[in-house]
């Protein structure tokens, strides 16, 4: 396949879901089975993605295929210089891997939804929304510039809003939709500012052009500080979209949406878009920005992990675990573990989608019961769901032979190496602690749901294994959560081609003195967008690679021990019940309450930001009602008064003048009508009389 054909294929993958959306939305009410068309479209898109990922990775593994056109060209604008906005498509290894994940999970979720959403009154509209989501997500993946990134960024926000509030009759669902939308706006504001900063500096939105100008030493306001600020502002978009601390509060509420949606949007793809954004802008991030990102990622990994320990809603646990895992990825990027972070994004997409679809299967079977304290013993009733859920739980806990082990261990060993190189051991410490917590809460969830005896006998009896269209996606995703697809050696991900040849550390463009020591390139930083040097792979110094090598064994051992410990504790607590959990909870009541109440984030936000906003709104409303309306009403009153005077003037002076004229004319007429008698003799008398007068005058 030639490069133009690749671009055409990318465009086809991009626009097929849009077609599906339009057709399904327009015909949804008339044609009951139109959803089949939408599913078919997504299958087509997935087939395209498979073809694309195969071609790209086998024939063009080292080159980026781009195609762009000038969308708006304003020519040479005074003060701004050459102003044009290009749109375009970038097909590189990152984007094809991502597109494969997105279309695959989207397809599986479509298939899963056919059974899960059966009987819903807005069945077709649901599929239409899935279509527009897939379209927007594909747009984010394929974009080669910040502008398109932002447009599609907002579009996924929109589709997320529509799908969270899909059951909008429920107040909590519509509230959750609004919350997600508004919280995301806060992050997007930062991202927009960052994009505008970039545009004012470089007059282009295109990634490669921005990078090459930075590499040439052209910085925003000629200051490295502003480059850092730009990076952090762009990262704000990721904080919102990837539900990072402190904007993570929307994601747990977003669980009000249908469960397959949670799997697709709020676990596997959309929330990963934030991580994808950081991956895209990684070359321009300075060490300060990276450190900021790492701290945010660390907090987002830790706090939700502690919250997940005590939640009883099956989807809430998974939501917090999603934030925690995204925190891992963000932290991984922050500490420079670019490859592992993106790798974790892919593996996490599969096993987290699997966990959500599994929970969807359970919820469907339990007639929309989501409370795990009312479940139990489902292992026997739902063997396929149990088996796949178990695999995913092992993967997220980081147990060998699973995909999660590979990627998570990669991030942990990088944090270890980062600690030894820079002295920031906190990331490694928190990373390992979260690994322990993750293993514990996942197995707590698994045991309470599937093991033991049923706590709600009635619902248990009605539970049943899901139908084929729900079970098939589970099995596919479970298979994808096994190590073999990524590397032949279950203990060393670097041996697989995904890390060794497909994902490469990017060529950094930031000035040398704004990088971490280990990121300083061994080759001199040349102005280059040229593909060959990107492929050379010498982006980080040898020191870093060596440190990662050294960290491999200790990190692996430690993470294994911690994960097993977490699982073991979960079994002790909930399976064998050796420890009285309630008693232990009572002894650490404050901590338990802190976790159970989600660190009071919602309450704190309600009391501070929301309250302040309300106060401000009230003040503004008062200002509007009294001052603005006062001005408007005052103006109206003045106008009224002026009009009255104007009316009087009109009535008295103008009309008076006109009437006076008429009256005078009438009066004169009254006099002169006397002369017109119609009698010839009178006229003659008048003529003679006048002649006599004239004679006297002109004599």
């Amino acid at each position, binding site marked *: 396949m030639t490069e133009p054909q690749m671009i055409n294929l990318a465009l086809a993958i991009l626009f097929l879901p849009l077609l599906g959306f339009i057709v399904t939305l327009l015909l949804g009410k008339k044609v009951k089975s139109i959803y089949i068309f939408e599913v078919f479209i997504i299958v087509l898109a997935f087939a395209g993605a498979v073809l694309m990922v195969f071609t790209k990775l086998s024939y063009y593994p080292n080159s980026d295929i781009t195609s762009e056109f000038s969308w708006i060209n304003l020519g040479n604008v005074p003060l701004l210089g050459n102003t044009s906005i290009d749109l375009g498509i970038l097909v590189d290894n990152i984007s094809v891997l991502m597109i494969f994940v997105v279309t695959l999970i989207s397809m599986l979720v479509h298939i899963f939804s056919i059974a899960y959403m059966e009987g819903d009154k807005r069945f077709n509209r649901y599929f239409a929304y899935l279509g527009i989501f897939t379209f927007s997500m594909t747009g984010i993946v394929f974009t080669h510039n910040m502008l398109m990134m932002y447009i599609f960024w907002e579009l996924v926000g929109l589709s997320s809003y529509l799908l969270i509030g899909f059951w909008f009759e429920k107040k909590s669902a519509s509230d959750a939709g609004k919350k997600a939308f508004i919280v995301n706006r806060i992050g997007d504001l930062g991202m927009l500012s960052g994009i505008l900063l970039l545009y004012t500096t470089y007059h282009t939105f295109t990634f490669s052009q921005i990078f090459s100008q930075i590499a040439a030493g052209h910085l925003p306001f000629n200051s490295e500080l502003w480059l850092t600020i730009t990076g952090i502002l762009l990262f704000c978009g990721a904080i919102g979209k990837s539900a990072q601390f402190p904007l993570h509060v929307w994601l747990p509420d977003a669980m009000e949406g249908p469960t397959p949606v949670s799997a697709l949007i709020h676990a596997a793809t959309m929330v990963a878009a934030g991580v994808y954004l950081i991956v895209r802008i990684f070359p321009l991030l300075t060490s300060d920005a990276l450190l900021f990102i790492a701290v945010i990622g660390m907090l987002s990994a830790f706090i939700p992990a502690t919250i997940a320990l005590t939640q009883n809603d099956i989807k809430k646990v998974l939501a917090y675990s999603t934030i925690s895992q995204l925190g891992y990825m963000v932290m991984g990027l922050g500490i420079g573990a670019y490859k592992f972070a993106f790798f974790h994004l892919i593996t996490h997409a599969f096993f987290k989608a699997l966990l959500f679809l599994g929970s969807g299967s359970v919820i469907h079977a339990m007639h929309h019961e989501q409370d795990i304290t009312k479940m139990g013993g489902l292992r026997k009733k739902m063997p396929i769901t149990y088996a796949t859920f178990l695999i995913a739980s092992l993967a997220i806990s980081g147990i060998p032979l699973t995909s999660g082990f590979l990627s998570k261990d990669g991030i942990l060993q990088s944090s270890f190496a980062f600690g030894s190189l820079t002295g920031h051991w906190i990331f490694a410490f928190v990373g390992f602690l979260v690994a322990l917590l993750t293993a514990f809460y996942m197995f707590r969830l698994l045991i309470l749901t599937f093991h033991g005896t049923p706590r709600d006998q009635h619902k248990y009896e009605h539970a049943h294994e899901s139908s084929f269209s729900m079970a098939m996606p589970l099995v596919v995703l479970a298979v994808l959560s096994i190590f073999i697809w990524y590397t032949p050696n279950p203990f060393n991900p670097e041996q697989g081609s995904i890390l060794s040849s497909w994902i490469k550390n990017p060529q950094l463009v930031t000035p040398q003195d704004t990088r971490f020591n280990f990121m300083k390139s061994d080759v001199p930083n040349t102005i280059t967008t040229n593909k060959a040097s990107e492929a050379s792979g010498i982006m980080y110094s040898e020191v870093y690679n060596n440190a990662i090598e050294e960290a491999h064994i200790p990190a692996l051992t430690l993470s294994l021990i911690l994960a097993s410990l977490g699982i073991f504790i979960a079994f002790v607590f909930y399976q064998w019940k050796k420890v009285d959990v309630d008693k232990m909870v009572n002894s650490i009541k404050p901590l338990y309450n802190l976790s159970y109440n989600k660190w009071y984030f919602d309450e704190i936000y309600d009391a501070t930001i929301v309250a302040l906003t309300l106060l401000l709104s009230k003040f503004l409303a008062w200002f509007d009602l009294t001052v603005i309306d006062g001005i408007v009403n005052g103006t109206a009153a003045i106008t009224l008064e002026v009009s009255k005077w104007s009316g009087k003037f009109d009535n008295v002076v103008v009309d008076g003048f006109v009437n006076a004229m008429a009256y005078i004319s009438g009066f004169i007429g009254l006099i002169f009508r006397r002369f017109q*008698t*119609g009698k*010839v*003799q009178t006229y003659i008398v008048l003529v003679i009389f006048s002649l006599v007068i004239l004679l006297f005058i002109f004599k």
Partner: protein
Amino acid sequence: MIHVGLNHFLVVSTILFSLGILGIVSRKNAVMVLMGIELILNSANINFIAFAKFGNFGFQGQIMALFVIILAAAEAAIALAIVLNIYKTFSTVNVDEIDTLKD
């Protein structure tokens, strides 16, 4: 014996003219109005003749007087025809009652 001069003629002519005007203005009957007009014409004739007699104009005055007499005849014929028509239209020849000009 008073010598009859131009002034005497002019006085007679003026009296005749005034009587004619008086006739036109004051008489009710249309025919009498016409007679007033004849008087005025004749006063003009007297003037012509008088100026011809005392001035140095040759026969021009007399000839003009003859023209006026002929014109008066023609005028009388037309005017009487008009009076007949007025009578036909209004069933009266009283000029006071004919005031449709007013409208």
